[in-house]
């Protein structure tokens, strides 16, 4: 019974999740590019400081300097976490077989010992990141539900995978853990393009998007006012009511 479900998770469900992930990422990638082209076409000013943007982007993609200026411990943890997160699912020997089944080719695997240690590192980093989010007040203030959920969700497949490949457990427990491993990994793949993990493909565009975003289409402001039906509205309020009237003395003089 469990084997059937595991087989389903590694077969059709895995294909579904993989396709959703790849297509979803391609979709947002293309949407961003099309959006940028459209924005540039709208803009009169098409000058883009490529050199500056590429420099900034590379400095964040390969963080050597900037990342460790502030909160170096946090930065280090997150860096290691990301490295492990990319390497283990892609290059673990057991996963390579899966990739080979689906795509037809596979690269050489990382050594088992290294993979095990990396898995443990990812688990620990994940827990640390979760705790940091929980106990660092500003981080807690801005966190949404998914921000807490992600580290926990990421622990599940790593932990179950680690136990399955290293622990000596009963066959039933092995199958159960394997089931959890497969399904949680599939869940993660589905969620990637629709949550903040989308930054894995979008991050290189950030600086460019911001640069294009700061250039506004000519005459947009006028069209907005026209759309809102406020063509003849003055751009300020003649006799405004103040929010905090007690705090503001009545005066009409022009300020600088």
């Amino acid at each position, binding site marked *: 019974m469990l084997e059937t479900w595991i087989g389903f998770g590694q077969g059709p469900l895995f294909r579904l999740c993989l396709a959703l992930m790849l*297509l979803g990422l*391609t979709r947002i990638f293309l*949407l961003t590019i*099309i959006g940028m082209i459209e924005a540039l076409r709208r803009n009169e000013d098409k000058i883009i400081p490529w050199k500056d943007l590429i420099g900034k982007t590379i400095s964040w993609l390969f963080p050597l300097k900037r990342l460790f200026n502030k909160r170096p411990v946090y930065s280090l943890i997150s860096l290691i976490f990301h490295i492990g997160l990319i390497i283990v699912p892609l290059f673990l*020997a057991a996963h390579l*077989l899966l990739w080979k089944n689906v795509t037809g080719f596979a690269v050489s695997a990382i*050594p088992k010992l290294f993979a095990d240690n990396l898995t443990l590192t990812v688990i620990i980093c994940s827990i640390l990141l979760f705790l940091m989010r929980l106990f660092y007040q500003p981080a807690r203030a801005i966190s949404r539900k998914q921000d807490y959920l992600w580290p926990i969700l990421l622990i599940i497949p790593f932990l179950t995978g680690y136990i399955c490949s290293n622990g000596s457990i009963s066959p039933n427990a092995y199958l159960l853990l394997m089931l959890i491993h497969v399904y949680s990994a599939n869940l993660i793949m589905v969620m990637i393009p629709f949550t903040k993990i989308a930054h894995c493909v979008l991050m290189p565009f950030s600086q460019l998007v911001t640069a294009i975003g700061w250039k506004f289409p000519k005459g947009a402001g006028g069209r907005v006012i026209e759309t809102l039906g406020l063509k003849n509205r003055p751009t300020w309020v003649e006799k405004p009511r103040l929010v905090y009237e007690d705090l503001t003395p009545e005066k009409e003089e022009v300020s600088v």
Partner: protein
Amino acid sequence: MNRVRNFKMILWMIIGVGAAVGVARFLLGLGSTTNLSDNTPWGIWIGFDVMSGVALAAGGFVLTATVYIFKLEKFHSIVRPAVLTAFLGYIAVAFGLLFDLGLPWNIWHMIVFWNPHSPLFEVGWCVMLYLTVLLMEFFPVPAEEFSFLSKIRKVLIKLRLPLVIAGIALSTLHQSSLGSLFLIMPYNVHPLWYTPILPVIFFISAIGLGLMMVTFESLFTAWLYRRKPEVDLLEKIGSAARWVFMTYLVIRVSDLLIRGQLDQLGSGQWQVKMFWVELAMVAVIPTVMLSFRYVRTKAAGLMTVAITGVTGIVLNRINVGGLVHINRGETVYLPAWTEIAITAAVIAGASLVFLYMIERFNIWETRPTDPDASPTQLPHFHSVDGTWLGTPGISARTKYSFGFIIAAAFAFAFISWEPAESRGVDPTPVHQARGGDTLWIDGNRDGFGTAFAHKEHIRRNGEDKSCSKCHHMNQPRDKNTACSQCHNDMYLPSDAFKHDWHSSPNGGKLACVECHDKASIRDIDSAKKCDYCHKNLIPQGSLIKIETYEANSYAEAMHMVCIDCHVQVAVEKEKPVLSRCETCHEGQRDLVDADVLIKSKSDLVGKRMVLPPLSRSKCND
């Protein structure tokens, strides 16, 4: 516009499924993604996409004839959509053909390599030419929008009448030639359908179908965009279509009478029922319904007739296109879902382009516009969920691509990606040999087996030591495994190596590294070879090569590998080919036939096998 947007969303999802299937079709080949077979080489892609697609587009030439030849100017308002439908219909035909053709990149060969005897050649050329004509007929419409095209536009408008005439002539040719395609198979097409006047029948039904299609398309888009349907025009079209269908009915029935095939109707074949359904839908129901003015003047009535007529003629095309062929009586062809997905996606793509053209160019007298697209329109938030997905362009892009990827991902998941080799093969279990001295080997129990004199073979091969010459399974402590223990299916690839049997004696799961390399994937390539441990299993000078771990199939293992090898070695050593029966049993065909190839097991009971006399001279060399 919500109705249009939802409709477009559905179309995009269909295209998503089709795109995934399309990828699979080119990666895996036709056999894995369709239900086509040697008996049914043409399926729904030809029957519906091509045969019906061309016929569905017949509205173009019928209406251009009406307006430009017969000068019935009042139909002018529905000429443009009809021509556009025709144009897109033909494009869709060409596109669908790309999936159906085995070598679609050779589709241009028809232009270079000529075979004027072939009706298909003529159809292909007519379609290409007519596509060009349609393009020239239709081009002035989009050219209205671009000032730099005004010169070409003027020239094309001046050329309109010749173009229309050429279009009609070409349509006449290839609509009827689609029928000519089947003239060459009088012994394949069912006699209820096969007639020398198939081209004429095809042409007349194409006119009827064109009229019905114009009606359908006009009513449907009116519903979609919430416009008032042009019922007054459609009423006239319906009235004309009535005569076309009546003519069709008369010709069809009199053809059957003249050919004397009416008695076929009593034969009780399933094709007869199909014939009745088809005839009713194509001719009887539309003729009767359209005779009532009440039906003709109501949109719902016209829609019913249109759907019936269109379905009927499409059914007719599918029938002639392969469904009711004689040879199909033996095999049942039902299109695979993948085939339907591609067909649907091609239609959906054409529909999307149609809707785009309607919204972008002056196909109708008033262009349907999305209110949100107007720059001064105040954004309108959805009453249910309170969202505004933005200007139509952006909303379209994000929403439709979302639908597209979801649909495509599901299609990817449910397509069977197994290689073609193992698909569609019914498992044929292999049974052990039975009997004592004389073994009755009939692996797949199909009644065609062979009697195998075991003792005799042992004796001639060198007594006890020779077992491993035949029994070469490398299972622990195994000397004479029956082939069927591993090769339990006749034709499926089967692994000669039992993994479980190896892991447990070596210490279970932990023992993987005993055979496999530590760092690499634990698959067949990283494992030690059999002879690394089983050194004694292979006798000195054995012909068996253990490099082959996976037999392609049992059949191959027995009849290709063994015999080939035996023959090869025999030739090398200049010895007679003992693996072939007739080497020894020469000139005794009758004997072989009578005694060795025994028809069933019961023949063996209580009998002792007598081997026929051998030509000793050959064997003893």
